[in-house]
């Protein structure tokens, strides 16, 4: 039997671990989104599993090549997959972009024999595409179960009006990702309801955040973010919940830009879903990395009495 030691509230707790998940963090989770990574790891210990970090991992490539003849861009995710397969059969990620790239590459290796051979020749491995790629939310739903999660919640987030923002990477392309219903996904909402929060329905929940446009044409990305946030706020949201460091950058860090352009805009905090999970599971708010959030969520949290 294995145990982990973790500070929960004011005490240290010994937690029994039932299983491991092979975990690919991705670059952002080591830099700008450390709070995402750390909270996910801590929460999983509370839920009885450990995120076992993949050895020698590299950047996933950050985009899936749309050109059919571009093998080069598929090599980093392929190498990650091949290494992971040597260590296990399931690979999990948190970042929606990494999840998208890795899952689609895996699917491609599985289905396209010719590309599979080419890629394997390049990376000098023999990977057949037989890994199962799971997002952290999928583990929560399938392996833990939302009803069970609800039972484990120590501090239900009662009264919190949270807008689940899927973005596009979790869902699209629908056929390849198969994450949830293509037009009306509900997995994220179910998760929030399990924590006791109220999920706000808003029409922009699956629209694109502007993604890398924030580098080349920042105005475009700001406008996208304004539309998404504005719609959520109008529908009653007090906070946004995200699964993606890219989205978070656009809808959280860009709020100061939005404020300059749209004077009546009132910023709202943007959480990683694991941060909310952490609060609900009773983790000390000082360990949840809120200092990395652009819009400070502490006033809202204290107003709601979650601290």
């Amino acid at each position, binding site marked *: 039997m294995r145990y982990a030691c973790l500070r929960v509230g004011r005490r240290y707790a010994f937690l029994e671990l039932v299983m491991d998940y092979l975990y690919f963090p991705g670059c952002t989770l080591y830099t700008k989104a450390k709070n995402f990574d750390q909270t996910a790891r801590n929460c999983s210990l509370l839920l009885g599993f450990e995120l076992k970090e993949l050895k020698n991992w590299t950047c996933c490539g950050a985009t899936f090549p749309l050109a059919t003849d571009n093998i080069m861009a598929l090599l980093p995710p392929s190498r990650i997959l091949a290494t992971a397969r040597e260590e296990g059969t399931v690979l999990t990620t948190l970042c929606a972009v990494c999840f998208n790239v890795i899952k689609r590459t895996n699917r491609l290796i599985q289905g396209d024999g010719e590309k599979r051979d080419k890629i394997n020749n390049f990376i000098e491995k023999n990977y057949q595409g037989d890994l199962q790629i799971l997002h952290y939310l999928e583990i929560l739903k399938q392996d833990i179960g939302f009803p069970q999660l609800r039972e484990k919640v120590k501090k239900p987030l009662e009264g919190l009006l949270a807008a689940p923002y899927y973005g596009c990477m979790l869902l699209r392309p629908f056929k390849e990702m198969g994450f949830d*219903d*293509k*037009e*009306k996904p509900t997995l994220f909402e179910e998760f929030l309801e399990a924590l006791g929060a109220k999920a706000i329905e808003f*029409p922009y929940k699956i*629209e694109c955040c502007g993604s890398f446009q924030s580098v080349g044409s920042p105005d475009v990305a700001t406008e996208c973010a304004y539309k998404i946030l504005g*719609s959520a706020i*109008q529908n009653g949201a007090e906070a946004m919940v995200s699964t993606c460091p890219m989205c978070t950058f656009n809808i959280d860090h860009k709020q100061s830009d939005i404020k300059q352009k749209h004077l009546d805009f009132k910023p709202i905090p943007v959480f990683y879903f694991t941060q909310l999970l952490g609060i609900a599971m009773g983790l000390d708010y000082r360990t949840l990395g809120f200092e990395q959030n652009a819009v400070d969520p502490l006033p809202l949290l204290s107003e709601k009495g979650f601290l």
Partner: protein
Amino acid sequence: MKRLGVFICHCGVNIAGTVDVKSVAEKIGKIEDVAHSTDYIYMCSEPGQQIVREAIRDQGLDGVVVACCSPSMHENTFRKAVKSQGMNPYLCEIANIREQCSWVHQKEKEEATRKAEEIIQATLEKVRRNEQLEAIAVAINRRVLVIGGGIAGITASLDLAEGGYEVILLEREAALGGHMAQLSRTFPDLDPAFNGLLSKTLEVEGHPKIQLYCYSELEEVKGYVGNFELVIRKKATSVAGEKCTGCGVCIENCPVEYVSEFERGMGMRKAIDLLYPSSVPNKPVIDREHCRHFIDGTCHRCEEVCPEKAIHFEQEDERILDKVGAIVVATGYDLYPKEQLGEYGYGEIPDVIDGLAFERMLSPDGPTKGKILRPSDRKVPKEMVFIQCVASRDPDRYMPYCSRICCMYTAKHAKIYKEQVPDGQPYIFYMDIRSDCKGYEEFLQKTIEEKGLLYLRGRVSRVFQDDGRVRILGVDTLTGKMVEVAADMVVLATAIVPSHGVKDLAAKLRATVDRHGFLTEAHIKLYPVESSTKGIYLAGCGQSPKDISDTVSQASATASKIQALLSTDKLLQDPLIAFVDEGICSGCGICVEICPYEAREMDPRHGISIVHSALCQGCGACIASCPNNACELRNTSANQVFRILDTFV
């Protein structure tokens, strides 16, 4: 020894471009019993046929092989040609060296030449042992069944009845008219659809040659061209047709109201009601699923108020047996089911409706009495979005084909909208505009210029409700810009799909449907109104999407084809059918079980199986299943087949 003739066709370069026809003719000519072997550029042409005729006469041939295209193209041509010289037509056979040889081996000329030789030699083997046969004459029933009482079925029925043939017209709904009864005005002339239809339906109702069965379905069909036996199920309407005067008192008094399918969910109907006001026949029907009398027996309002005592709750379904010689399938269309159109918010957002619902809205007798009011709050929409090609031309997710009517009816919708709401703005998302019939392009251009319609070339990615309006995200590919429109109402031009239940009907009729469920024609260009099953004819949208004028043209074409079929009282059938060697048959009856045409039967007196020559289609199922080899197919005997195989292996 027989004297055989071989005639090899070049088919221009179709065959001669790949097969060395000269050398084949020469080689075949050396075979012992081949008295004549020659080639010609177009054997099916008049001079080509003359070559065949002369050779038969001059050489005294008693068997002919024509090596050319598929027998379905010209077998008949050459059989007629040999018959004119007194030769039995069944001694003439086609060796297919085009579709099965030259076309598929264009890059392997030598191999193709060798294969053509073998095909001809094999066909010679068949001809050597062919019997002289006579066509079988079958008595024909000169009545016609028309399935579907929309504009296609109505037109075909009237044409046939005017031609003097008796017609049985079958309609699933309670009244005639089909989808045309739901339309407001038709393009390109903007005529009221209903008036035109009404005159036709009344003509059908009063026609002495047309037997009309509404609220009825075809339950069973047996037989073959010229002699179909039908079982029609006339569903109980619970209203005695002969007593009912159509006064409508029962409808006024019925307490049960539910959403009407005819009004596309926008209006209500009663449990006893007409399909639509002034329908033909103008007699109400009780819907037993909704009528309280049939649910719990608590209500007898209609029975009490009917002055004619025409309500008969105890009425039962009726099974009617009848016989016809030909069948027209005019089953029409449905619109693509809304449950599967998530990205357009269809079925979820009340102000997103389909084209037929908008037609109902524009109809003077419709749920809004012809006024354009959005369903959610009955306000006049100031900004309207029309989306074309919804679920059409989208092979990845929906239907790959073009539904053909949407471009025109959307322009018509936008025009009528602009006339009714002059300060409103219609936006139309389109892929291409297809306006290829008489007067269509002119109608369209005139409408765009006069009414200031805004056409946006591009697709819509999402439709959602926000802030009480319907937001449409799309792209205008001509400017390359994303477009976002906040509209009051959206009309989707959804794809045409075959009417529900067509697959079952087609199976009963032994007719084929394509992968989308549209009935398949015998040949897309040459036999467009015949199905691949003899005696079954097609009309209207059941075959492919088409507008009213095309539907009417096709229905008339179908009617005239049937009139030609029924113009004689005997039908000649191919004699290439099964026969039984009475000395071998043990009477096991396996063939009776296996025959798909019910052409095999046991003869109880002799204890053997017999063949009904009029029913047998020569499929060969009984021959393959006979354990004693007691049956054979005329001119495809086991002996012939083995010799043909010998040639190839």
